[in-house]
C-alpha cells in the first residue's frame, strides 16, 4: 500500500533524531533509506511501524492515517537486523506466529508456514529450533515470518548486514525475487551503497535526521543534490574553480559550463575520466593493480587528488608516466561554493 510520511519529527531521550521528514512510497514500490549509522533511518522505520512515537507529523498508509495506531494494528512488519526469532518455537511455529495472532486455525497456519518456508528455500526445516539453524537460515525464517503476516508494508532494517558476503548476495536476490512475486510495498534501510542502488526503485539518502535526496538510483548517483550525497557514494574528487562567461576554469582543467558566474567545485568521479581519449586533464599513473576481471589504476592530478579507475583493457602504462585524459561532462556535477550545503 502507498505510504505517505508528512513532516515527521522524532526524538529519543530528548535528542531530536528526525527533523521534518517527508517521504512517499508508491504501492508496490521498493525504496531504500540510505545513510551512515546514526542518521535516523532505523528510527524512521520504527516510527512507521509504531514502535517509536513521533513528536509531530503524520503517517498515512493506503490513504489512512496510522500515526496514532498501536504497533500491532498497523500491518507494518519489520525484519530486524538481529532477526528476533522466538527461541522457544520451531521454525514453522515462528513463521506461523503472525497467523496465530490473526486467529487462523492451527492446521491452516502450519500449512501456510510450510509453504512460506519453501518459498525462502528452507523446505522440510519447519521442525528445527532456532539454535539448529545457521545465520543465513535464520534470516530466511525471519523473512518468511514477516511475509506470513501479509503486511501492508514490509520494512527491512539492515537485514543482511550480519551475513557474510556470499550469503548477503544470495539473500538480496531472494528478497528481490520475493518482492517481484508478492509485490509488497517495501522499505529497506541500509548503509550499503551498492545494495541500495542495485535493489531499489528509488533511494532516499539521509543524513542528520533529514532526507537529502530522493530519486531513482541513477539520478542519485550521477546527479547528487549536494556534496554530502556525492560524498556518501564516494569515489569522487573535487576541482575548485570559477565560472566566468559560461566557462569553468580550474588550475587542472577547463570546460564549458552554462552556469551563472561564481566559484564552483566540480565533482569528478573516476567513471567520468576517459583515459583512452586525449583531453584537457593531465594525470600521472601512480599504481597499476591487475585483478583478473579488470585492472585498477590509480591516477593522480597535479594537486595531489587521486582517482581509482577500473579498466577492462589497460594500456601499457608504466608507473610515473603522465597521460592526458578527457572528461565526460554528463557525469560531472558543479556545486556552487557560494551556497555550500
Amino acid at each position: 500500500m502507498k505510504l505517505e510520511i508528512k513532516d515527521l519529527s522524532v526524538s529519543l531521550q530528548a535528542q531530536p533524531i528526525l527533523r521534518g521528514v517527508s517521504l512517499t512510497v508508491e504501492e508496490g514500490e521498493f525504496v531504500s533509506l540510505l545513510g551512515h549509522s546514526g542518521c535516523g533511518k532505523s528510527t524512521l522505520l520504527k516510527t512507521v511501524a509504531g514502535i517509536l512515537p513521533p513528536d509531530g507529523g503524520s503517517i498515512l498508509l493506503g490513504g489512512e492515517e496510522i500515526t496514532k495506531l498501536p504497533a500491532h494494528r498497523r500491518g507494518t512488519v519489520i525484519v530486524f537486523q538481529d532477526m528476533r526469532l522466538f527461541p522457544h518455537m520451531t521454525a514453522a511455529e515462528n513463521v506461523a506466529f503472525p497467523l496465530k495472532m490473526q486467529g487462523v486455525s492451527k492446521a491452516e497456519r502450519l500449512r501456510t508456514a510450510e509453504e512460506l518456508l519453501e518459498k525462502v528455500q528452507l523446505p522440510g526445516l519447519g521442525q528445527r529450533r532456532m539454535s539448529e539453524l545457521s545465520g543465513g537460515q535464520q534470516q530466511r525464517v525471519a523473512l518468511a515470518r514477516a511475509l506470513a503476516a501479509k503486511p501492508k508494508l514490509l520494512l527491512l532494517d539492515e537485514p543482511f548486514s550480519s551475513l557474510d558476503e556470499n550469503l548477503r548476495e544470495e539473500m538480496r536476490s531472494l528478497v528481490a525475487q520475493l518482492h517481484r512475486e508478492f509485490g509488497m510495498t517495501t522499505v529497506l534501510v541500509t548503509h550499503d551503497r551498492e545494495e541500495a542502488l542495485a535493489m531499489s526503485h528509488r533511494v532516499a539518502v539521509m543524513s542528520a535526521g533529514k532526507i537529502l535526496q530522493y530519486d531513482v538510483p541513477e539520478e542519485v548517483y550521477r546527479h547528487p543534490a549536494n556534496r554530502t550525497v556525492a560524498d556518501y557514494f564516494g569515489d569522487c574528487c573535487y576541482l575548485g574553480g570559477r565560472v566566468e562567461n559560461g566557462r569553468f576554469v580550474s588550475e587542472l582543467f577547463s570546460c564549458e559550463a552554462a552556469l551563472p558566474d561564481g566559484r564552483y567545485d566540480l565533482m569528478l568521479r573516476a567513471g567520468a575520466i576517459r583515459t583512452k581519449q586525449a583531453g584537457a586533464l593531465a594525470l600521472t599513473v601512480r599504481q597499476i593493480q591487475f585483478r583478473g576481471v579488470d585492472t585498477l589504476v590509480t591516477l593522480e592530478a597535479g594537486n595531489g587528488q587521486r582517482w581509482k579507475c577500473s579498466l577492462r583493457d589497460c594500456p601499457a602504462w608504466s608507473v610515473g608516466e603522465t597521460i592526458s585524459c578527457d572528461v565526460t561532462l554528463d557525469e560531472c556535477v558543479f556545486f556552487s561554493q557560494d551556497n555550500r550545503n
Partner: protein
Amino acid sequence: MRKKKWHIAVLLAPFLALTALLLLSVWNVAIQSFGYIPAFGLTEFTTEHYAKVLQDETFLRALGVSLRIALLSAVLSAVLGVLLSAALIRCRKRDGAMLYLVRMPILVPHAVVAVFAINLLSQAGLVARVAAALGLIAEQSQFPQLLFTPDYGGAIAAYLWKEIPFVAYFVLALMFSVSDTLGEAAENLGASPLRSFFSVTLPLTLPAIVKAFLIIFIFAFGGYELPLLLGATVPKALPVQAYLAYMSPNLRDRPYAMAMNGVILLLALAMAALYGVLTRRMLKRMGGRA
C-alpha cells in the same frame, strides 16, 4: 605448569575446606540418626528412629506447616513478583527511585521484618492502636488476629513482603531484555501487548521465574526466624520443631532429633534435584538459550 597446579590448589582450598565441613556434618547427621553415638553409649545401628519420626504426629504436623508456608510463600511471591515486573515494564521503569524502592525489602533481615510485623500488625501494634484511637474499632483487642495464628498467615505475609521484590529483582533484567527485543517483535507481527507478554515474554522468562520460585520454596521451607517469631505455639514449623528436639535435655533423644534432620535433608536434596531437572529441561526447550 607445576606452578599453575599449585595456584589451583590454593584457590580451591577454602572451597574444599567448606565442602569437607558440610560433608562431615551430613555424615554426622546420617550416623547419629541411625542411632550410632558412642559418646552417649549408643553403638547399635537401627532404623527405629526414622520409623518413630515418620509416625510422630507432631513431626507430621510440623512438616505440613513448613510445606504450607513454603508453597504459599513461593507461589504467591512468584505470581505477584511477575505481576510487579510486568507493571514496571509496562511503565518503562528501567531505573531510578522506583527500582531502589522495590529492592529495599531484599536488604532487610528476616528477624527485622518480624519485628516490623509485630510492631505494626499485632493487637498491641501501631495499626490496631491507630484504629482504636480513630474509633474504627472499640478497643485494640477487636483488631483481627493476624499474627501467631496456626495458619502461619503472619509468617507468609512477611515472606511475601521480602520475596515479591526478590522475584522482581531476579526476573526484571531478563524480562526487560526479552520484552525489548522479542516482545517488540511479537507486537510488530500483530500481537497485542497482552498476548505478546503471555506468548513470548513470559515463556522466555520462565526459567528465571522457576529458579526464583525454587530458591524461595527451599528457603521458606528451612526458614527458622519468621515461623518462630510470627507463628503459633502449636503446631510448630519443622525447623523450630527440629531445634527443640535437638535441644532436648535427654541426650538419648539425640538420634531422634538427627532422624528428623535426616528427613529434612532428604527433602532438601529432592528439591535441589528437582531444581536441576527443571532447569535443564527448560534450557533444552528454549533451544539452549536462557
